[in-house]
């Protein structure tokens, strides 16, 4: 079976550029509109991250909280998230898609059911914010069985010993959190320092695709383009909020923004 995530990173490396990953919340601002946004931004985004909203998030900043709140208010359920994923994948079969969210939703759905559903919906990877290593070992193994990439997270507070363990148990993609922050914080660390930590991880195993996220916006993205991949989330969520406030169409606005982000890393 082709590994869509791995392939995408290879493709980007050939083009000597980082992969662009976007994060939006499923169902923001409603089911249809969120699918339209995905279809539209996938023109420029290499990997799609789709958040499944939780109403008690302990690691998200204001922008993503607001998006999640809108989605939940619009009545989004976990099965709708899978439906959106499936519809997107039937539109772009080979475009990698990763789900991101909190563990309680997986727990209530049942790990196996959740992964079965991932598989039938064409989900390629999963990021769980509050299931750190080594507690995630058994679930990560299960993910592998279902050909779903479990994306391990590493942060600036991760010790070298932990890092080695995490990398050893990681799959094709690892997510480096750029700084001590919730999502959507202002980048408070220099890109030089972030890339130094990034290199430290790469030195342990250069074969793993390492993406950087948190604090990345159109302003900061070009300074980090040495990475294998870069994630932009909160800026997109904020843009949805702003376009709704201003009575504009979030789909066209996000398309422009992601196009601009892409331009800055080519």
């Amino acid at each position, binding site marked *: 079976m082709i590994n869509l995530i791995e392939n995408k990173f290879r493709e980007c490396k050939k083009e000597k550029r980082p992969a662009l990953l976007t994060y939006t919340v499923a169902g923001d601002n409603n089911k249809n509109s969120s699918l339209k946004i995905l279809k539209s931004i996938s023109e420029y985004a290499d990997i799609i991250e789709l958040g499944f909203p*939780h*109403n*008690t*998030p*302990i*690691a*998200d*900043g204001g922008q993503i*909280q607001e998006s999640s*709140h809108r989605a*939940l208010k619009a009545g989004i*359920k*976990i099965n709708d998230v899978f439906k959106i994923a499936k519809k997107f994948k039937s539109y772009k079969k080979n475009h990698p898609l990763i789900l991101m969210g*909190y*563990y*309680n*939703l997986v*727990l*209530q*759905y049942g790990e196996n059911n959740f992964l079965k559903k991932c598989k039938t919906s064409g989900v390629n990877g999963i990021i769980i*914010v*509050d*299931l*750190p*290593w080594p*507690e995630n070992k058994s679930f990560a193994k299960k993910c592998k069985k279902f050909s779903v990439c479990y994306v391990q*997270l*590493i*942060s*600036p*507070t*991760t*010790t070298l010993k*932990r890092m080695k363990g995490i990398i050893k148990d990681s799959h094709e993609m690892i997510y480096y*959190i750029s700084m*001590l*922050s*919730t999502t959507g*914080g202002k980048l408070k660390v220099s890109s030089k320092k972030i890339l130094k930590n990034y290199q430290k991880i790469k030195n342990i195993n250069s074969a793993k695709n390492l993406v950087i996220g948190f604090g990345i916006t159109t302003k900061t993205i070009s300074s980090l383009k040495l990475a294998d991949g870069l994630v932009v989330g909160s800026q997109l969520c904020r843009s949805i909020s702003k376009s709704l406030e201003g009575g504009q169409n979030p789909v066209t606005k996000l398309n422009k923004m992601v196009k601009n982000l892409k331009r800055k890393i080519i």
Partner: protein
Amino acid sequence: MKKSKLIIDKHDKNFFYGGKFGGNFIPETLKKPIDDLTVLFEKLRNNRNFIEQRDYYFKNYIGSPTPFIYLRNLSKFIGGAKIYAKVVSEANGGAHKIYNATVHCLIAKKSGKKYIVGDTGAGYAGKMLSMAAKKFGLKCKIFMGAKDIKRQKPNVKAMRENGAEIIPVTTGSQTLVDAVSECMRYWVSNCDSTAMCVGSTVGPNIFIKICAWSTSQISRELILQIKSEFGKIPKKLKLINCVGGGSSALGFWNEFINYDKNQIELIGVEAGGPRNSKLHAAPLTNNSKIGILHGAKQYVIQDKEGQIGKTESISAGLDYPGISPIHCYLKDIKRARYTAISDEDALEAFKLVSSLEKISPSLEPSHAFAEAIKIAPKLKKDNILIVNSCGDSLKDKDIIKKRLGHYSR
């Protein structure tokens, strides 16, 4: 259960009680600060100097021991079992939250942190943290739901007077659950410079441990007071405590958990909410399913999908959809019994207790008094009921005035 171990230490290597409650469901960023705090706390609790320091502040700053009194008038009025109170609200600041706050500040000093942040519902955890922070020279920020800021004004005022910055939380239901989330989010961003105090026995394992270890002072005092009052531990004893997050109950019960439950019954009273409401903050009474809230597995009010449910209670301190994993464990092994009391019954109990006795319990322990009032008449005179009067009513004066027409103290 092994008899010798403290209840807080009865977890497995992954920090689960009974193999299924607790754990650390946290973002990667918090892994190291939590590991560091765990190591530091283990070191300190085995350090004689630290224990001496703790005991010094418990005695001279908090004012231990708090009184243990017989509620003669109430017992006579109700009939049946004899009702006693452990008047923890006599502690400095007016509630049990001072124990946890003091210990967290002592630990923060040892770790070299200059800032401390905390959450609060009823405002007691925040008030005490701001007091202790001031005492120990730490800068303090308190996260509090906007709804709670409005309904617990006296404590808000006290926090400001202690120099704490109050951060109103306007997300979600704007109560304790959101305050804890926001405080954790703040810590994710500032864990390098700032210590966090979780206000109850909830959250990642280490916070449950530190909190229950601190409030255990209540039962260390009580066991001596009981022995001096009765000459021994009575044959039929019931320890009644309100539970929101569960910190005062765990402190009240700690020394008694290893006793036979036929001799010492532990009764936890959850918030039933308004009589006709379905939003009870009572996950144990209503058999909620296991889920994850604030980093720990527990019985929690949630929908099928795993979205955390809204709750409603007259008492801000009990208005929380989750409950300490240790209480979940005590329920599962049937060591403690849990029940719920409505807003109306809690108010009635407040009225009765404060008119007959010299104590004035806040709305949280009024739930526990209501349960005592309910069961006492059905029991014989040789039964001893002890209620933990863990908070003072002053913070509730606006609510009480509104509901009962007057408030006097």
